[in-house]
C-alpha cells in the first residue's frame, strides 16, 4: 500500500506553547487511521493543520510524496482533503441537498437548477449507501443524520481523505454503529479516513492503524490488529489505568431512602407533555443509573431535578423535605450537588476565573463571602485546595476557565460540588468529552461518595458507565420510565432492548 499523506517534523506553536512537536505520521491509501490521545494532547491542532486551518510553525505535509502548502480549508479541499468538525456547520432552515451544495450550487443560465441538484445528491447518497432524504430540512433531522450530511458535503467535493473530529461524541449508540458501517463502506470505495477519537472500543472496531499522541508528540504507531484497548490506554496516559472502575467491593446500599421523585410530569415550551409520571428513588449509599437513548426525556428530567424547569405534577423529596420546583440555590443549600449536563453552559462560566467558578452556587460555605463581600484570599485558598486535591492541571491557577481542557474543567465542577458535603449528587454525563485519566478519577470519586453513604443519581448516555457504576438502573423511553434492571444480572443487550422501547421487563 502506498502512503497518501504524511507529515514530517510538523510543529505548531501558539506563542510559547508547543501544541504539536515534530509530528511524523503516515497514512496509507484506503485505510482508516485513528488518532487517539487525551484531551489537550494536540490531536485537533494536528488535524487543523492538515485541513489548512492552522499554518504549521515548521515541518511539512506531503501529499502523495509531494509537499503541499495550504492556506485555507478551500486549499485542503482542492487537494482532496475534507474534514467533518465536531460541531456541525449546517443551515438548519435549508434542506439536506441545499446544505450539501452550499457554496457550489449547480446553475443553469444564472439560476439554481434544483432538479439537477436533487438528482446529483440522490445519486451521491445511493453511491455511498447512506440512508437520508435529500428533501428533509436540517432542523427536522437527528444529530446522526446531520453528521451524514457533513460527510456527504465533503464527498460531493470529491475528497479522497476524510478527517473526522470526535465523530461519535454526539451520537446515540445506534448512530455510532451506523457511522462505523458507513466509514467501512467508504473505505471500500477507496477513501482514506482519519478519525480523531478517545473512545478505544471504536478504535479497535473500525481502524486499521492507530497513532497515539500525548502532549503534542507521537508516542506510538501501531497496527490495530497488533494491539488492544488496554495497551492503547496505557500509551495515552502513560500509566496503567483500570479502564472501567467497577462498583463491586463497596458496602451494600442502606435501606434508608435519600431521595424520592413521585410521579412528576412537565411540559415543554410548546405545551407538549415531555415527562410522564416519572417516579424513582435513591437509597443512601446507592448509585441509581438512568439509562436511555438521548432525547427520551433525560435532559428535561435533569432540568426539573436541578431546578431550572418546573413540574406540572408530582413531588420531589430529599430525605422527606419537599424540594419540588425549588430554585437551584435552595437545592444546593439542602445538600444536592449538581454536575450539569453541559459543563460550559450550566456548570462553569468560561470567561470567569477559576476561583470565581469554585464558589459559584456556594457563597455561604467555606467563609468565602461575608455579608455579600467576597474574600478574595479565601477564594484563592479554596481554589488552591481544589486544584491540589482534585489534581486539576492549570497553567494559571487564578486565570479564566477557558484555559482548561475538558477533563480539568469537569474536575473544577466535581471539586465544587463534592466539597460542599452533599447528601445527593445528581451527575449528568459526568465524563462526556473527558480524557481517560479524568474519567477514571471521576468514577472513583463518585464511588467514594457512594461508599460514604451518600446517594448518587447518575444520568449518562454511556451505557458502560451506567452499567459499571450503578447499583440499580432505570431506563427512560419517550419521557417515561420503561423499566428497572439489575446491572449484575442484566446484559447490555437487555438494557439496549429496553432503551429501544421493547417490552418492559421486571417493573420493580
Amino acid at each position, binding site marked *: 500500500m502506498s502512503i497518501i499523506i504524511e507529515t514530517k517534523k510538523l510543529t505548531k506553536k501558539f*506563542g*510559547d*506553547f508547543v501544541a504539536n512537536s515534530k509530528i511524523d505520521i503516515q497514512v496509507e491509501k484506503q485505510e482508516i487511521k485513528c488518532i487517539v490521545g487525551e484531551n489537550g494532547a494536540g490531536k485537533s491542532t494536528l488535524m487543523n493543520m492538515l485541513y489548512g486551518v492552522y*499554518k504549521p510553525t515548521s515541518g511539512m505535509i506531503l501529499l502523495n510524496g509531494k509537499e503541499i502548502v495550504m492556506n485555507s480549508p478551500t486549499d485542503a479541499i482542492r487537494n482532496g482533503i475534507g474534514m467533518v468538525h465536531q460541531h456541525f456547520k449546517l443551515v438548519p432552515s435549508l434542506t439536506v441537498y441545499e446544505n450539501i451544495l452550499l457554496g457550489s450550487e449547480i446553475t443553469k443560465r444564472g439560476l439554481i437548477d434544483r432538479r439537477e441538484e436533487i438528482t446529483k445528491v440522490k445519486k451521491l447518497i445511493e453511491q455511498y449507501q447512506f440512508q437520508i432524504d435529500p428533501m428533509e430540512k436540517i432542523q427536522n433531522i437527528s444529530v446522526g443524520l446531520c453528521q451524514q450530511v457533513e460527510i456527504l458535503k465533503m464527498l460531493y467535493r470529491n475528497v479522497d481523505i476524510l478527517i473526522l473530529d470526535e465523530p461519535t461524541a454526539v451520537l446515540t449508540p445506534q448512530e455510532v454503529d451506523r457511522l462505523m458501517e458507513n466509514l467501512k463502506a467508504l473505505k471500500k470505495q477507496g477513501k482514506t479516513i482519519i478519525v480523531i477519537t478517545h473512545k478505544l472500543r471504536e478504535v479497535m472496531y473500525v481502524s486499521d492503524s492507530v497513532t497515539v499522541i500525548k502532549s503534542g508528540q507521537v508516542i506510538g504507531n501501531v497496527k490495530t490488529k497488533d494491539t488492544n484497548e488496554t495497551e492503547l490506554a496505557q500509551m495515552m496516559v502513560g500509566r496503567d489505568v483500570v479502564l472501567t472502575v467497577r462498583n463491586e467491593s463497596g458496602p451494600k446500599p442502606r435501606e434508608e431512602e435519600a431521595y424520592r421523585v413521585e410521579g412528576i410530569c412537565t411540559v415543554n415550551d410548546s405545551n407538549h407533555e415531555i415527562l410522564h409520571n416519572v417516579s424513582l428513588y435513591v437509597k443512601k449509599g446507592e448509585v441509581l443509573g438512568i439509562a436511555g437513548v438521548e432525547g427520551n426525556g433525560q435532559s428535561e428530567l435533569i432540568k426539573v431535578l*436541578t*431546578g*431550572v424547569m418546573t413540574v406540572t405534577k408530582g413531588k420531589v423529596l430529599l430525605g422527606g423535605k419537599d424540594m419540588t420546583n425549588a*430554585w*437551584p*440555590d*435552595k*437545592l*444546593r443549600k439542602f445538600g444536592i450537588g*449538581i454536575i*450539569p449536563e453541559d459543563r460550559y*453552559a*450550566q*456548570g*462553569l*462560566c*468560561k*470567561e*470567569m476565573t477559576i476561583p*470565581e467558578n469554585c464558589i*459559584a*452556587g456556594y*457563597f455561604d460555605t467555606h467563609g468565602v*463571602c461575608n455579608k*455579600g*463581600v*467576597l474574600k*478574595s484570599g479565601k477564594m484563592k485558598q479554596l481554589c488552591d485546595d481544589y486544584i491540589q486535591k482534585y489534581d486539576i492541571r492549570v*497553567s*494559571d491557577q487564578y*486565570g*479564566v476557565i*477557558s*484555559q482548561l481542557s475538558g477533563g480539568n474543567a469537569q474536575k473544577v465542577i466535581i471539586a465544587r460540588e463534592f466539597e460542599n458535603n452533599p447528601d445527593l449528587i445528581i451527575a449528568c454525563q459526568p465524563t462526556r468529552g473527558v480524557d481517560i485519566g479524568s474519567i477514571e478519577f471521576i468514577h472513583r470519586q463518585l464511588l467514594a461518595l457512594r461508599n460514604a453513604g451518600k446517594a448518587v443519581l447518575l444520568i449518562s448516555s454511556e451505557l458502560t458507565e451506567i452499567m459499571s457504576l450503578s447499583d440499580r438502573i432505570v431506563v427512560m423511553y419517550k419521557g417515561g420510565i420503561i423499566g428497572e434492571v439489575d446491572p449484575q444480572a442484566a446484559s447490555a443487550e437487555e438494557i439496549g432492548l429496553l432503551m429501544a422501547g421493547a417490552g418492559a421487563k421486571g417493573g420493580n
Partner: protein
Amino acid sequence: MTKKKSDYIGPKVLNTLLPVGLAFLIGGIIILCIGENPLEAYRIMLGKSLFTAKGFLNTLHYASPLLLTGLAIAITFKANLFNMGVEGQLLVGGFFAGIAGASLDLTSPVMQKVVCMLVGIGCGVLFALIPALLRAFFHVDEMVVTLMLNYAMIKVLEYLSSGPFREAGSGYVCTPVIHESAMFQRLGIGNSRLTMFFFLAFAILLIMTFIFKKTKLGMEITAIGKNPDFAEATGMRVRRKIIILMCISGALAGLAGAGHMMSEKFKYTLGFSGTTGLGWDGMLIALLGRHNPIGVLLAAIFYSALKTGADNINMYTSVPKEIVGVLQGLIILFLAVQFLDERFGLRERFARRMSRKEEA
C-alpha cells in the same frame, strides 16, 4: 499558556483613542472648511477647559452628572442589559428633586439636601422599575421599552412644568427655584463652580467599583452578563438580579438628575438636561470608557471638557459650538467600528504580521 487579560490592554486603549482621533481629524476638516485653523480651534476648546485650574475645576463640575449617567449605563451593560432610559430617569429624578427642594423647607440644610436627593433617586428607581418588571416577568425587550419611555417622560414633564408646577411669575416655562438650603454651594476653590456634588459622584463611582469587583452581587451580575444559563443553573436568581440592577441604574440616573438640579440648574426648565441630554451623553461616555469605572471617569471628564470648551470656541472663534455635537456623532460612529482585534497583544500582532510577510 493562556495570556492574562491585562496583557492585551494595548489594543483596548487604542481602540478607544482611535475613534476620538479620527473624529477630531474629520472635525478639523470641517473647521478648515469654515475657514478657521483647526489646531487653534482645538487649542481653545480643550486648552482652557483642561489646562487651566479654573477651567479644569469647572470641567469636573460639569462632569459630575455625566459620571453618574455613564456609570448607570455601564453597569447594566455588564449584565448584558441595556438601559437606554437613563435620560428619562434623570429628568424625572431632577424634576421631582426640584419640586421637593422648592416645596419642602426643613430646618437642617443637610436634611433638606438628603431628602431632595432621595426623592430624585426614588423617582429614578420607580421609573426604571417599569421596564425591569416587564423584562423579568414578560420577556419584553428592555432596550425598546426604556428607549420609548424617555419620550413619554419628556412629554409628561413638559405638561407638569408648564401646568401644575409652573412658576407663576416667570416669563418662560419653569418650576419654582429650590430653596437655598437645597442648593449645593460652590466650594469656591479657584473661583470655580465646583460643588460637593462632584465628590459625591466620585464617591459613588468608588462604591460601585467596589460592588462590582468585590461583592457577591457584582460577581453574579458579571456571570449573568457572560453566561445566563450558568447563572441560572448555579442559583443566582437571574430575574431578581435583573430587577435589582435596573433599579441601581435608575437610582444612579435619578441621583444624577437631582444633583444637576441642586448644583447647577436650581429649577426645571424644558432644556434641563441640555442639548443631546446628559443621559444620552452618558451612553457615549459608557461606550468610550468601555464600561469600566476608571474609563467612565476619564471619558466623563474628557466629554465635559469638550462641552465646556464649546462655549470658549463660540466666544473666541467663528466656529459654531455645534461642532461639539458633530464630534460626538463622529466618535459614536467610529466607536462602532472595532479597529483592532482585542484578543491579541500588539506585539504578537506585529510578530504575526512579520511572520506572514516572511512566508509570502
